[in-house]
């Protein structure tokens, strides 16, 4: 099931991930970032920044209108946070545990953060975060960590783990997208995250967090899908259905 989490998200290129990270850092200082700030921070031309921004906007990760301000959406902030925290964790892992010089650690982290597979990276990050930050971790923490990774909840974990990564994973166990629902299967909408225009239409049609959807059928070839929601029925294209996370 853990693999499915990876499928839900559109894989971003390393450069787009870096842009998200930059926007996050810039918007910490003030509410919005501007193209030229981003260009300066990443030392690239404004033109290539706008192209990347259009792409990110179409993925529903930022808001970017003709006025040049840019701001992260909730989903964008989440993704950016993820990249940034990986970066920080990796850097400190190289520095603290492997005792590498700061510059080298930084460079290694930069290369690794994009190229490790999602699953491997997540495990690694969680492991390291666990080592460093889990305050109540007892001495047999390794066993506990494995217990936590099995996602069987806190009872088997043996202690209350407040690490968001840990909780997140347990919570995401039953998470999938509308598109992945099987015939007749029902799910509760958790998150609606696609390009702004499509998201607005989905919301207008009543696809909101907490609403129950049921997969009725698929068109020949599996696309579009036909769902039932609160007494009426809708048809969505595959890419629209993939943008809606549901919990089964």
């Amino acid at each position, binding site marked *: 099931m853990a693999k499915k989490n990876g499928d839900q998200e559109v894989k971003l290129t390393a450069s787009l991930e870096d842009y998200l990270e930059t926007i996050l850092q810039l918007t910490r200082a003030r509410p919005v970032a501007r193209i030229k700030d981003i260009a300066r921070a990443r030392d690239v031309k404004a033109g290539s920044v706008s192209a990347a921004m259009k792409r990110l906007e179409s993925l529903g990760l930022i808001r970017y209108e*003709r006025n040049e301000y840019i701001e992260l959406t909730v989903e964008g902030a989440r993704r950016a946070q993820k990249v940034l925290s990986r970066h920080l964790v990796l850097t400190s892992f190289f520095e603290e545990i492997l005792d590498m010089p700061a510059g080298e650690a930084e460079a290694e982290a930069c290369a690794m953060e994009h190229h490790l597979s999602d699953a491997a990276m997540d495990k690694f990050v969680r492991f390291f975060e666990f080592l460093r930050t889990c305050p109540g971790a007892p001495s047999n923490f390794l066993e506990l960590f494995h217990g936590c990774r099995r996602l069987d909840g806190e009872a088997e974990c043996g202690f209350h783990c407040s690490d968001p990564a840990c909780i997140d994973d347990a919570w995401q166990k039953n998470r999938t997208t509308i598109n992945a629902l099987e015939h007749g299967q029902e799910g509760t909408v958790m998150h609606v995250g696609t390009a702004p225009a499509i998201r607005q239409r989905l919301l207008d049609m009543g696809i909101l967090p907490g609403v129950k959807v049921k997969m009725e059928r698929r068109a020949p070839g599996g696309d579009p899908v036909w769902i039932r929601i609160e007494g009426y029925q809708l*048809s969505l294209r595959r890419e629209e259905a993939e943008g809606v996370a549901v919990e089964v």
Partner: protein
Amino acid sequence: MLKKETPDPGAIRIAIAGQPNAGKTSLFNALTGSSRNVGNYPGVTVERRQGKYRFEGKQYDVVDLPGTYSLSSFSPEERVAQKELLDNMADVVVVVVDSTALTRSLVLLAQVIHLGANTVLALNMSDEAHAAGQFLDLDLMEELLGCPVVETEAHKRVGAQKLKSVIARAVEQPGEPRPPVLGERLSGALMSIESMLANTSVKREQRNWVACKLLLWDREFTPLVETQGEGGAEAVAQAAVLRKQIEEQTGEDISVFVAERYHGFAHGLVTETLRQRPRDDARVLSDAVDRVLVHRVLGLPFFLVVMYAIFWVTFTVGEHPMGWIENGFALLADLISANWHVDTTPALRSLVLDGVIAGVGGVVVFLPNIVLLFFGLALLEDTGYMARAAFLMDRLMHRFGLHGKSFLPMLTGFGCTVPGIMATRTLENERDRLVTMLVLPLMSCGARLPIWMLLVPAFFAPSMRAPMLGIIYLFGVVLALTLALLLRKTVLKGEEAPFVMELPPYRVPTLRAMLTKMMERSWLYIRKAGTVILGISILMWFVTSYPKADAHDIDAQIAADRATSQEEKGSIVAALNLKESFAGRLSIAIEPVFKPLGFDWKLVMGMIGSFAAKEVFVAQMGIVHSLGESGGRSESLREDLSRNYSSLAGVSLILFLLIATPCMATVAVTRRESGKWKWAALQFFGLTVLAYFISLVVFQGGLLLGFG
């Protein structure tokens, strides 16, 4: 040429808003009867319907807003509806909702109220809701909303009178719609933004709404307000801060957060006023039908049968009335020519016979197809099968940048491009509509069949003829799909419009609703496209009739040919006149341009003629054919063609005729349906240039490879 809309300054202005499929247009028809005017909003393909009615001695002007699910600013429909509501604040806004999907529909009501309109709520399809066992406390609903509520069954015109009197009351005593309760956090944020809008030109009653738009980072409002001085910029900045705050506190995207508040309001309203819940099995029958009609295996065959039936009715059944119309006009022409001697005012006689009568005939002849097709479309739409058809076909069509609903218009194109283009109305999205419209002429239409019947046997051996005909049709389809994809990537690129589509339960359509739709379309065609077609017909008549050939030349030619029979003389006169006409001169002048494609001026002449109507090519070729150098005229046109042109030139010619210059009726209808000459011009010149290059490559390539 077009009837100018004359808004009565003293009239009361009513706007009808509603979601698609809520029965908005039926309600509009029920209110206005037959007095309506259908046009386009300037610059977009969004339809604008306007009508009027009198009630208790007062005049009411009604405008039917485009159907939208909400008042956001993503689609042209939404922008138009919102603009109409904000800028031309109507005296009363009637919000039509689908009673069988109340919560979702009431979101739009909440937004219209929020926008500050004097609102009346029409609970449409109330019969269906009652049949499902759903009953509401209307008095309580009126009280909670602060605006009048009426139940209607628009398709049966039930409730229209009641609605009229409620509207009249609402005009005299505007209700006090209570602003929707959107929760403390949102309301607080809106008030704080609103206060900064005080120094801008935003109207007072609309400020709260605009504040909400700013909070949502609306792509229309944000740049607009930002330029409105200090206050505007401040409000935008404040909205950014609050948005961030709300998102951080709730962990939700702002658009989700706001949508949830609106839905919460609608949901609360329904819960409070619901006296009896609808039975869960209300859709059981419809669902059972769906299990068969969109069945994994049976769905597609059934779909194809339905499509074929519509095609068959439109064109095969339509052939008969078309024949009557053609005969009728021929009869009329005979009658006139018999009673109007050739020598009395010959120019006027020719204008009437060959220009006006042929032109009007050319307009009317499409009517049977259009009437029948739109009856079929109305049937598909009103029963609800259209949405299923789109569901089944979308995957295939979407690959080429088209929409599931593009299928039927394109199929219709095999019969005739004109009704096909008119059928693109069924597509909700502007870009889908334009792409479908622009590539539609590539579907080889029925009028091109006589051309293929002439050319294919002329250039191909008997065993090759059937496959060639198949290849022609297939090539058109492949090119249309490729071009559609290309258009999506270039001229019509942009963010993909949402497909998300409602699948309403099957309904039994009313004959009246279908007839109304049918008549409206047909009338629209005659009035708007017909006038353009007639105009071009007369122009075509002129360029092919003037100037006349010198009588001396004709005598000389006839003498040289030693023509004996009266008939032969007549055809030589016709041919020489055509050669001397502007069209003939033009063909000769541009012959060098078409030489590399393997065409001579006679073929070019035929193509110019085919602009009037594709099949005219055959007739024109028949006329110029009699201009042969040899005396022996016994050979048929077909033999003449195969003797004078190589097979390679034949292929080049077929390709050119398939792709190039849509006929004038197509141009006129494209102009009318797309709302802009720009698109008609793009279609016309784009296809012609494309045809030129394809024919050029084929002909020159063929020569290099040693064919021909």
